């Protein structure tokens, strides 16, 4: 599904954020990316979203080398990937429903499709009762669920999450993890960068550890581990 081959990322200022990364993630896997702050987790995610291009190496997604992808194909590539961030990134003047529908509008879905799909996905993340609330009227957990709903509404085959529980308390984070786990069980490949040791340790999933831009461990059913 996802394959990094000798990927190195050096930023314009000369900072080497990732160094010779090789990794393969299979279809339907659930993978945590952990590492200290500045280890390169977000850089890895930005590469996957083709927000930036690596200095060297290739990145394959569904057998396509995205480093060679044409600019005009990028939006269509991104439609196959759902993404959530620590800061939710919702539009404050749109309701929960509208925020989710927005992701379908940009794909020019019909009103009918939107009316069918949005309530279904809101139901899935347990937000149906809040459909007409604005983000400012929601708790952090509810906002993140809205953001998850938006990421999932177009049925992506990959879900990427960059510290999705970073702004949430433990209990709320647990609820979000339940939803993400459920999505994974429905066949979506999940890649999640996190600092949350309890979550990683409790879920017994594959854990990839980055340290100063290098991959220092890759364990099945691993635990949170950051080199001193």
């Amino acid at each position, binding site marked *: 599904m996802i394959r990094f081959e000798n990927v190195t990322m050096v930023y314009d200022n000369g900072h080497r954020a990732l160094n010779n990364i090789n990794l393969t993630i299979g279809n339907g896997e659930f993978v945590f990316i952990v590492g200290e702050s500045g280890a390169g987790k977000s850089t890895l995610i930005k590469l996957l*979203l083709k927000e930036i291009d690596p200095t060297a190496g290739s990145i394959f997604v569904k057998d396509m080398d995205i480093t060679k992808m044409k*600019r*005009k194909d990028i*939006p*269509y*590539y*991104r*439609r196959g990937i759902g*993404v959530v961030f620590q800061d939710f*990134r919702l*539009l404050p003047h749109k309701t929960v429903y509208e925020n989710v529908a*927005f*992701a379908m*509008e*940009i*794909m*020019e879905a*019909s*009103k009918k499709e939107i009316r069918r799909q949005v309530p279904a996905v809101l139901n899935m993340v347990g937000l149906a009762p809040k459909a007409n609330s604005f983000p400012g009227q929601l708790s952090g957990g509810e906002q993140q669920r809205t953001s998850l709903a*938006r*990421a999932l509404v*177009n049925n992506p085959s990959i879900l990427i999450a960059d510290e999705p529980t970073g702004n949430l308390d433990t209990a709320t984070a647990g609820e979000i993890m339940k939803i993400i786990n459920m999505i994974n069980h429905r066949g979506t490949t999940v890649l999640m960068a996190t600092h949350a040791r309890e979550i990683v340790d409790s879920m017994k999933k594959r854990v990839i550890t980055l340290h100063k831009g290098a991959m220092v461990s890759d364990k099945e059913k691993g635990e949170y581990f950051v080199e001193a």
Partner: protein
Amino acid sequence: MKLRTWKRMAKQGFHNVFRNRIMSLASVSAIAAALFVLGLVLMVVMNINNIVASLESKVEVTIFLKSEAQRLDIQSLERQIKSWEGISELRFVSKQEALNTWKEEWGDKKYLLDGYHAGNNPLPDSFHIKLEKPEYVADIVEKANAFKMVEKVQYSKDVVDSISSIASTTRIFGLIIVAVLIAMAMIIIHNTIRISVYSRRREVNIMKYIGATDWYIRWPFLMEGMVLGLFGAVISGGLTAGVYSMLVSRMSGSPVQSNLLSLFQLLPLERVMYPVSALFLLVGVMVGTTASLLSISRHLRV
């Protein structure tokens, strides 16, 4: 893109305009001002062209004779003129006839001319020639001037030429002013769109993540520029039409007596406003869209 997407883009464009009221107002005023001046220039030029055309269609040459010209010489001149090319009508007006006409033209004030009679008539004998085409003027003037008994040759081409030069001066200076105003409008709209892009940066960022195409992101801002241009065109169109119809009613309200002034029949409102408003819409929307496009290419990182 699908129809519903176009609708959404247009709606978004309008929405942006109203969201960003102050800058939108500045933009619309700037476009409206530029177009209004353009409208004034066009009104003047169109009317002058109309006058020139009507003058040219009735080019007349008047040959004034010296007072000592003898009847026989005059008759022989008349025969010669008749043989010239391009003459469609030839009429001899004696000094007495000219005096009578003059008195008639002055109507109830003709007592002022009571002092003039056959003995001290200041007016000369003259030939009035209508031409088939204005091209013959130069030729005929030259031939007429060759006669000793000819005092002066007058022809409406003089008037045509001086009026034409007014038109071209108006056109040149007017268009320079219009160009400056359009440039200013472009700068203001450019800034308006930049601010709009800035205030929507969050949304733009999200749109990128969820896979909106570049043009899907750009179109609302382009629409915003178009809407600004459209509003500018409508406002300046209304303004121009108002000013023009006021002028038309002023001109027709005052009775015009003089021969020359009667030529200044303003074109009817519709004749002027159809082409002018079409041009306003075209220029307004083009200016808005171009400025927006420039702004987007500089400020919208998609």
